[in-house]
């Protein structure tokens, strides 16, 4: 790919983020910054019980509070057939509870008042009578015959959501029977929460005169949400405008539709004034899309030399009270079947059972492409267990089993076609950077002295960019994405996409793609997303799909524009199109130095001097259906030291080598990697949302659910290899999620490695000092 000048700032230039100017000055425009004349405020009354019959709701006292305008209950919504709404996974979810509540903090009533404080005070006055029911918090008990039935609304009288399986069971079982070695691990990927800096919320504004509903929404997928509003609310889709303004982080948490959004819309439709609803931090942690809660068993069959023969995975997926995850229709367990990872398994079989429990609904993909984090964690964990069983170096075991670079595109036993990869190269760079051999020596010496040090490897493979229309849809809408580029007469441009940045830097990276393809300087390209009245339709930003889909669409639309620009250039230069050659920013006549037209001159001509037979203007739109997913990969190495007295784990070094194909902006990629590694660090060591036996949330505040600060965060050492995607228009793969997907296993492997000589095979996340200290105490090592 031809590198553009710094002035143009196309692909590969580490240009500063265009959006940061307003963010660092506090001039961002988030949903809570939207203030409209006459706007009123909503507040949710929530259930204190995890499972209880709803006997009565008394709103009299609350209604008497001055300033209270309306109180909406489930019974009210039922009259409009809105008490339930569809989820993005073909389940349905209560908007406001009717009959019973199914999780603590479930939405029970929506209070609307003239100001936020009155709404909150009035919510306190709503009296709800409950009758407690037996609570189910353990997914393992969900399928028991005597388990309490949670979802009485379903025809199936059990707590099972789905059973999904893939692979050749018979051949896999046979391989296990014949195997010399079988290694097994039970690993929990604990329930955690994306906890974006900005919580969820909306402003709903129904204009009775125009019958138009405008909703400012914290949405990662504004177009899909508009369609859901149209289908559920019966409002004509052209009369709904969803605007996702600046979004303060999403990480999957802003993909589902939440009851608060629907209630705010209903309140605005009813009252005819704008209604704002913004979650508190605790509401966000307790009721909106959580992640993980995968209870996984993995077995690997291998020969005595460590060559893997088969993998068998059985997983229990706890989706909470409603299956409110956003999964592609054909994949109820997402892309979990990437669990054979970077290794050449001849056979594999994977099954997942989804179950209901009395917990908040969800199962969203937290900074991962539909359950890829769970899969990558599982395979990288079980490979270490196998290495330990074989007394083999985990690096050697991985290298022995990597899919060789020459075998791409590679067909996995669970049905994926990996586009490209060079796993040995990424591994080698990581080992050289960290100084692996010297670390092994140091570890051996430290063990002699009784000191605890561990090295953890994770050579993950991701699967992102959902996805090809033949296999991928959400509620039937195919997972293409789009771009529309319009070049103005002065050679500047605006482009709009179906995706929506939540901090990823789209305003910069998409502009760089246009710069690369058309030679219009990135600073002259305005990128706009998130307004359904102006942007072309798309499925939004999650699953690292923006670059693989809308990024590709941007390049394809730019290429259409370049084709038209060529015709205009030929006309202006009085040459034939075949005699023209392109370099970013201008067309020149071959062999005639100085005879050229810049893209700016061409753009001006498109409005002022139009060639006969051509339409005026210079714009194009593309809806890109990716032919395949992309498969980023990398090797991460963590080095930890453990304090025997306290169990404290110090991450001494962390080397991250990523391969995300061709890079648009290396600075943004590095920023994404830093952020993702920090989240992975938090998941490995700090974060879990637990429930007690009564279904009380135990991680519902930042006092209990910990977020790492600069103080705890280790120093990250990053590196890259470049293996372009062969099917993507400019060879990119997507990177936002790799560090979150790949790093938890590296951290856990490092801690287990530090303790493996004591017989420790596995420790579940989050690995807190308390857990480690208890292990050390058990082994008599705390001193």
């Amino acid at each position: 790919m031809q590198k553009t000048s710094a002035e143009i700032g196309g692909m590969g230039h580490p240009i500063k983020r265009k959006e940061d100017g307003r963010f660092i000055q506090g001039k961002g425009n988030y949903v809570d910054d939207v203030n409209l004349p006459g706007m009123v405020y909503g507040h949710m009354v929530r259930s204190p019980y995890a499972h209880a019959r709803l006997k009565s709701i008394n709103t009299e006292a609350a209604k008497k509070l001055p300033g209270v305008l309306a109180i909406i209950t489930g019974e009210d919504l039922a009259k409009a057939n809105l008490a339930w709404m569809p989820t993005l996974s073909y389940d349905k979810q209560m908007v406001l509870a009717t009959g019973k509540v199914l999780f603590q903090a479930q939405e029970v009533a929506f209070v609307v008042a003239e100001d936020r404080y009155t709404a909150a005070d009035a919510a306190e006055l709503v009296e709800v009578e409950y009758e407690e029911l037996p609570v189910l918090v353990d997914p393992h008990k969900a399928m028991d015959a005597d388990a309490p039935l949670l979802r009485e609304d379903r025809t199936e009288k059990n707590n099972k959501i789905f059973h999904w399986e893939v692979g050749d069971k018979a051949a896999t079982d046979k391989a296990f029977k014949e195997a010399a070695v079988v290694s097994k691990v039970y690993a929990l990927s604990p329930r955690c929460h994306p906890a974006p800096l900005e919580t969820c919320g909306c402003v709903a504004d129904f204009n009775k005169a125009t019958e138009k509903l405008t909703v400012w929404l914290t949405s990662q997928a504004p177009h899909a949400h508009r369609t859901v509003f149209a289908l559920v609310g019966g409002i004509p889709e052209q009369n709904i405008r969803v605007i996702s303004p600046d979004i303060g982080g999403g990480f999957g948490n802003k993909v589902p539709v939440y009851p608060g959004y629907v209630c705010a819309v209903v309140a605005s439709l009813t009252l005819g004034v704008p209604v704002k609803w913004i979650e508190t931090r605790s509401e966000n942690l307790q009721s909106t899309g959580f992640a993980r809660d995968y209870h996984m068993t993995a077995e690997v069959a291998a020969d005595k030399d460590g060559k893997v023969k088969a993998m068998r995975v059985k997983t229990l997926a706890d989706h909470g009270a409603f299956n409110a995850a956003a999964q592609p229709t054909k994949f109820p367990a997402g892309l979990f079947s990437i669990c054979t990872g970077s290794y050449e398994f001849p056979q594999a079989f994977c099954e997942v059972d989804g179950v209901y429990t009395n917990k908040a609904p969800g199962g969203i993909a937290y900074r991962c492409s539909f359950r890829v984090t769970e899969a990558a964690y599982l395979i990288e964990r079980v490979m270490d267990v196998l290495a330990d069983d074989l007394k083999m170096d985990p690096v050697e075991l991985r290298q022995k089993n990597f899919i060789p670079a020459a075998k791409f595109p590679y067909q996995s036993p669970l049905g994926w076609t990996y586009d490209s990869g060079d796993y040995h190269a990424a591994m080698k760079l990581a080992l050289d950077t960290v100084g692996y051999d010297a670390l092994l020596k140091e570890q051996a010496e430290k063990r002699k002295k009784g000191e605890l040090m561990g090295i953890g490897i994770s050579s993950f493979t991701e699967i992102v960019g959902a996805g090809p229309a033949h296999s991928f849809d959400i509620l039937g809408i195919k997972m293409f994405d789009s771009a529309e580029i319009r070049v103005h007469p002065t050679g500047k441009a605006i482009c709009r996409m179906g995706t929506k940045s939540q901090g990823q830097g789209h305003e910069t990276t998409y502009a760089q793609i246009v710069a690369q393809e058309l030679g219009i300087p990135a600073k002259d390209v305005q990128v706009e997303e998130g307004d359904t009245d102006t942007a072309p339709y798309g499925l939004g930003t999650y699953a690292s799909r923006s670059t693989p889909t809308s990024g590709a669409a941007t390049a394809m639309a730019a290429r259409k524009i370049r084709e038209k620009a060529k015709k205009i250039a030929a006309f202006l230069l009085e040459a034939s199109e075949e005699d023209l050659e392109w370099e970013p920013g201008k067309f020149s006549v071959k062999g005639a130095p100085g005879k050229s037209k810049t893209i700016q001159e061409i753009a001006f001509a498109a409005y002022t001097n139009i060639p006969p037979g051509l339409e005026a203007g210079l714009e194009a739109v593309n809806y890109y259906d990716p032919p395949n997913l992309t498969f980023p990969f990398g090797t991460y190495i963590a080095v930890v030291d453990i304090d025997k007295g306290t169990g404290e784990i110090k991450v001494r070094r962390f080397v991250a080598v990523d391969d995300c194909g061709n890079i648009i902006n290396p600075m943004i990629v590095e920023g994404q990697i830093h952020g993702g590694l920090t989240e992975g660090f938090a998941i490995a060591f700090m974060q879990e949302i637990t429930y007690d036996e009564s279904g009380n949330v135990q991680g519902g505040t930042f006092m209990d659910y910990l977020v790492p600060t600069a103080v705890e965060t280790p120093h990250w050492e990053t590196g890259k290899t470049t293996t372009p995607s062969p099917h993507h228009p400019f060879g990119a793969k997507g990177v936002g999620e790799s560090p979150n997907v790949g790093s938890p296993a590296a951290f856990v492997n490092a801690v287990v490695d530090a303790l493996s000589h004591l017989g420790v095979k596995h420790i579940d996340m989050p690995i807190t000092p308390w857990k480690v200290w208890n292990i050390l105490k058990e082994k008599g090592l705390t001193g």
Partner: protein
Amino acid sequence: MAVKIEKTFQVNEPVEKVWVFLSDPRKVGTCVPGAQITEQVDERTYKGAIKVKVGPSVTDYKGEVQIVRLDEQAHEIEILGKGQDVKGKGSASMKMTGKLRAVDGGTEVVSVSELNVIGILAQMGSRVINEVSNIMFEQFTKNFRQQLQNAETGGSETAAAPKPISAVGVAFSALKAAVTGHSGRAEAKPGPEGAKDSGTS
């Protein structure tokens, strides 16, 4: 969420006198911060209420207290309390056993409480619940001694109308206690007769 709290403290009164007090829920009830015994249902069952304030929200538990076991000989009492918040903010139950033992110069009171809280209070986490319990217990101990003394000096047994105990205040004290190792409240300072924590779980 279930929390087990074990507490031991001493009072400078003879066992028999303390027992008369301890075995009467109406008397003990006045010592619990924010609590009130409103009605006697039968010999062993009472109706009562306790208010706990969390920020702007007052959790107002109403329910029953029942004496499950009363052993005059061993000076042991087992009490079961259950309540629901009147506005549906959650529920709480507590099983408490109290045992008296004569010691040099007075009586040792040993109590083991198993508290189960559902709802807003429970979300505050076991650390806070434990510390809230500690502080409530310290106040209880202080009241208990005061009431015993009042009984001796012929002072009034009727307590003033119960004020809701503020869990936000308590939570901050609890936080401070957790980070500094003492709650910073005058009555919480461990004195020679101060409540001593014999371990929580």
